[in-house]
């Protein structure tokens, strides 16, 4: 407790604490408390070995790599497997475009780029010590087994390099780790293990994805019907099924429309789609409504109806980020401002000198579009015309016609970020470093961009500006219970959620206004015609009767 309050004092006192406070909130990763049943991890159940009984794990261990050596002494093939996965390589080559993707290369519209900032960003690399280009990706001893498999909740990581002087707070007052104890605790990863990084993408809780937040550590059933301990208590790996340390469910190659459905035992384990469990005819009552809903499966992703809103559960996501305001100082020091209190009561920063201005939102209605699982990325070497602003960092592809697409929900992230005005490209920004060029220390964006580009021999005109970018994050977590799924009129309406989605005839939304106008004229014309016919009959009957009366009187 003493250390913790000590940390808090430092955090409060130091003006630059904004960064470390949020960066550290993901560590350590406590296991679910009071959770009688273990989380469900797909086909793997664990429990065949008690790691505290292994001689190799008795310790003591001087550092992480020593633990890894011990792990690999029994799991002889795991190291080889691990070196191939994306948690290790941070790299993905698109088979369609040949583009080099992955965190190692991409520019995003949050903290913009991991490249060149690995000293900080590679905290979330599943390895030890990646701080620059010299990192050895072939050395199995650098694999960090514990970050995923720790079950004591005491394991944590610090940045791989020291960064600017002001960042030293990130390394101070941390409790010592008992690596032997941690190594003996290992088991299948739980939500908190994966969440340590994946809930904190973009630099804080739920900042990036919108559908992955710390609320999923212990989600109530209405937040996530699968992950809730009151639901099925799924660990991430229940869906992201793992084989040889390769996970199903690639961000870079999404299966937007799974027509194979559920596999029988022993069959495919390579997908994390809803259909792989629920089949492509998931509404089972046989009613007209359920049959009709099953027909929707061909064109509407399950997520579209079953995740009615994202950033639920009390944790906000950032929707808009403005780097133009970054770098303001008070008395030469960086500072931060609170300005948003999220659903669970926590304060969020709306301004940080190191990052700029943020706009948060919760319970957000997604944007929707046809998605075939592929994205077209704007990478550091993509030239664009500034007039096309906002520049899509990752334009999602797909259409009704291609047969592979379905209507998917997305979080749309909008950002003002630095770019090369002369060349019309995005830029690597040198944020983290011990040098005088790092933005997180000197607050000089010009220097940071120049250095970020030079470090990788990239062309830079020398003139940077800010432009608007958007990125799209497919929404797929936070699946609500079925009773909370969208009602039909959310989309089947003139101003519904799908009002801008083209390529479909949507009853209730689409109509031919000429047919409707003609129809209305016909109906009201017929009504009016009938009424005037009736009125004329009334009048003539009255006249005829008077005539008859007069004739009758005349006869007399």
């Amino acid at each position: 407790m003493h250390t913790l309050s000590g940390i808090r004092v430092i955090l409060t006192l130091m003006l630059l604490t904004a960064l470390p406070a949020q960066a550290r909130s993901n560590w350590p990763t406590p296991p679910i408390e009071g959770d009688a049943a273990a989380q469900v991890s797909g086909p793997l159940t664990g429990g065949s070995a008690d790691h505290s009984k292994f001689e190799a794990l008795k310790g003591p261990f001087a550092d992480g790599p020593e633990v890894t050596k011990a792990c690999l002494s029994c799991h002889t093939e795991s190291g080889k497997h691990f070196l191939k996965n994306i948690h290790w390589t941070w790299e993905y080559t698109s088979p369609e475009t040949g583009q080099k993707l992955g965190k190692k290369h991409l520019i995003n519209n949050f903290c913009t780029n991991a490249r060149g900032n690995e000293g900080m960003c590679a905290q979330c690399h599943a390895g030890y010590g990646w701080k620059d280009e010299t990192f050895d990706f072939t050395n199995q001893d650098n694999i960090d087994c514990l970050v995923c498999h720790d079950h004591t909740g005491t394991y944590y990581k610090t940045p791989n390099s020291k960064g600017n002087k002001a960042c030293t707070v990130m390394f101070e007052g941390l409790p010592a780790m008992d690596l032997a104890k941690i190594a003996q605790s290992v088991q299948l990863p739980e939500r908190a293990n994966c969440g340590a990084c994946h809930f904190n993408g973009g630099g804080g809780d739920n900042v990036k994805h919108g559908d992955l937040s710390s609320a999923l550590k212990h989600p109530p059933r209405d937040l996530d019907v699968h992950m809730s301990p009151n639901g099925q208590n799924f660990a991430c790996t229940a869906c992201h099924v793992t084989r040889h340390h390769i996970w199903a469910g690639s961000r870079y190659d999404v299966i937007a429309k799974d027509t194979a459905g559920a596999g029988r035992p022993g069959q495919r384990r390579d997908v994390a789609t809803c259909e792989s469990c629920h089949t492509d005819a998931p509404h089972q009552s046989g009613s007209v409504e359920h049959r009709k809903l099953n027909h929707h499966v061909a064109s509407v992703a399950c997520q579209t109806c079953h995740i009615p809103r994202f950033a639920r559960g009390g944790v906000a996501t950032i929707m808009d980020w403005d780097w133009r305001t970054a770098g303001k100082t008070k008395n030469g020091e960086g500072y931060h401002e609170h300005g948003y209190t999220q659903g669970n009561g926590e304060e969020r920063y709306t301004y940080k000198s190191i990052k700029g201005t943020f706009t948060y939102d919760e319970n957000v209605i997604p944007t929707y579009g046809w998605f075939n699982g592929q994205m077209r990325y704007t990478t550091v070497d993509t030239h664009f015309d500034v007039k096309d602003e906002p520049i899509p960092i990752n334009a999602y592809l797909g259409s009704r016609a291609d047969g592979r697409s379905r209507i998917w929900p997305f979080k749309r992230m909008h950002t003002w970020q630095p770019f090369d005005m002369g060349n019309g490209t995005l830029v690597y920004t040198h944020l983290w470093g011990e040098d005088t060029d790092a933005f997180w220390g000197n607050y000089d964006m010009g220097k940071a961009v120049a250095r970020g580009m030079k470090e990788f021999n990239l062309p830079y005109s020398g003139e940077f500006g800010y432009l608007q970018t958007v990125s799209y994050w497919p929404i797929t977590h936070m699946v609500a219970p079925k009773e909370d799924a969208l009602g039909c009129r959310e989309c089947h309406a003139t101003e519904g959620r799908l009002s801008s989605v083209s390529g479909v005839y949507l009853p209730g939304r689409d109509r031919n206004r000429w047919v409707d106008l003609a129809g209305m004229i016909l109906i009201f014309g017929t009504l009016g015609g009938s009424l005037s016919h009736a009125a004329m009959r009334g009048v003539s009957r009255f006249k005829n009767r008077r005539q008859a009366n007069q004739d009758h009187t005349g006869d007399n």
Partner: protein
Amino acid sequence: MSIRSVLIYTIFERFWHWAQVTLILTMLISGFAIHGINQWMSFDEAVTLHTLAALALLTLWVLATFWLFTTGNWKHYLPTAAGLGQVVRFYSYGIFKGERHPYRKAYWRKHNPLQAIAYLLLKSILFPLIWVSGIVYLFYFAWGDTPGAAVWLGRVALIHTATAYAILAFVIVHVYMLTIGHSFVEHVTPMLTGFDEVELNAEEEAYLIKDEPNHIR
């Protein structure tokens, strides 16, 4: 020649008519709810109701078509020009002069020439249009993968909607016509009891009294 009360709407015909009334009204209301014109029910209720009513109506139409052709009742719908001008003249002119309706219901001909043409158009154009477009729409799941399917679905829906407006206009005129001549109640009663005042010749009257005593009052 004498006017007698004769059973001219058999039990099946009356069932057919009133079932059709119920189903068509259900389809109009639920259909226009799906189209977004009224919000009297939720979308899923409207779709369920519309689909089930459509299947019921199709079944009824199959039965009715079978009945029409096996009993020879289809002849009632044959168009004729004879007397058509008089009927049109009556509705547009004579009715305002207090004239009597020129048409006499006959045992072998229960519709006046205008009615016959109206029903023939309804049965041969509007109904086929709406149920063919409706079935094509209903089975979209089976052809939705063909190229340009979504565009075609829009066209099918357009035909379906336009026909629905026309059928609604027919319903309005049909109900309004019941107020012409006799009272509304007198017009509706035959469709409930089956018996209507019909002009019979001597042979018809003798035949009915002898062979179908239950069909004449």
